[in-house]
């Protein structure tokens, strides 16, 4: 359990590494995030840090949110996100978390909403193969049979069908940070991350299954 950072996807580019190989990278404008609340076992039952990120016009923030932000000396932040931590020692209300928390070579998990694809058919949504487009076929992109006959007489739950696709949160795990630009608040990450440019991302140190806490 460690603190991550919130960021905005800027888009993809490429980066020449030491060997001169061109590597596809995603640029993320991350932080600086303000620490808007500290939760501790004594008051909340668990330890956590709440971070705020993103500019927003002051009139778009309602009074309860303004009151909450005033405790850390902030006026208007678009996003708030909580990170569970082992202890909140050394963290200060109103302090900030920036890209300096990360270093090149570190592995991170990046979460965000995927691109929304609307109501999609089976080919796009589940990778079904389509029928023949010609030779008298009318079965172009149809679903085909969705089950047996009188027995069982119903469609099994979980049957893959057309429907809303995308716009869901997923996590791309184990991405390597290639570069940290402190001046511009940039993280350069190898590979792709969820969502379109401008999407909100949650970047945190990679959580490997079986790894000891704190690693």
């Amino acid at each position, binding site marked *: 359990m460690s603190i991550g950072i919130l960021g905005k996807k800027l888009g993809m*580019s*490429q980066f020449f590494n030491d060997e*001169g190989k061109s590597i596809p990278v995603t*640029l993320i404008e991350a932080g*600086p995030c303000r620490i808007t609340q500290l939760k501790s076992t004594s008051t909340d039952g668990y330890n956590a840090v709440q971070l705020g990120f993103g500019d927003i016009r002051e009139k778009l923030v309602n009074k309860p949110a303004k009151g909450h932000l005033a405790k850390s000396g*902030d*006026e208007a932040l678009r996003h708030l996100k909580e990170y569970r931590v082992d202890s909140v020692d050394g963290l200060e209300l109103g302090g900030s978390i920036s890209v300096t928390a990360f270093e090149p070579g570190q592995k991170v998990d990046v979460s965000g909403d995927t691109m929304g694809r609307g109501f999609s058919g089976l080919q796009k949504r589940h990778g079904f193969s389509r029928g023949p487009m010609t030779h008298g076929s009318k079965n172009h992109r149809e679903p085909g049979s969705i089950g047996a006959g009188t027995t069982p007489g119903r469609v099994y739950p979980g049957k893959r069908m057309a429907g809303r696709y995308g716009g869901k949160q997923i996590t791309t795990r184990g991405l390597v940070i290639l570069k940290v630009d402190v001046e511009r608040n940039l993280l350069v990450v190898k590979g792709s991350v969820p969502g379109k440019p401008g999407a909100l991302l949650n970047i945190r140190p990679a959580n490997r299954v079986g790894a000891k806490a704190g690693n």
Partner: protein
Amino acid sequence: MATESTENQAVDQVVDATVSTAAPAATAVQEKPAAAKAKTGKLSAQELIRAFEAEQLKDELPDIYVGDTVKVGVRIREGNKERVQPYEGVVIAKRHGGLNETITVRRIFQGIGVERVFMLHSPQVASVNVERRGKVRRAKLFYLRDRVGKATRVKQRFDR
């Protein structure tokens, strides 16, 4: 020629933009990061990406045209030693632009046609020298693949 000059201008603008906004942004961060930054006008996503790519662009590349004969110095690592190997041939295609710009260089080696694609801005390409300007009427010289011997010659031009 025209595309080269506009690209250079674009890069210059980005550099100017970073210089002008860097100073106020740096002071603002110390006082109040969230509120003050909104007013100082941050760089847009496109500008940030362009600035990131501008750092990697080479600025001393010569003007290369399709049809030119070029000598490309390729960095090769053998164990711990690094040396530059020259590769000479005719540019038969140029693709992409900016950081992703590539040239395809064709030469006949031991009777067999060899084509190599070089990313111009890659550190693996140590140098590019134009040996001879060619006069051609196509943007892609793929027709050279079907020709042998004397027919593969490209007419020289002297006005570049």
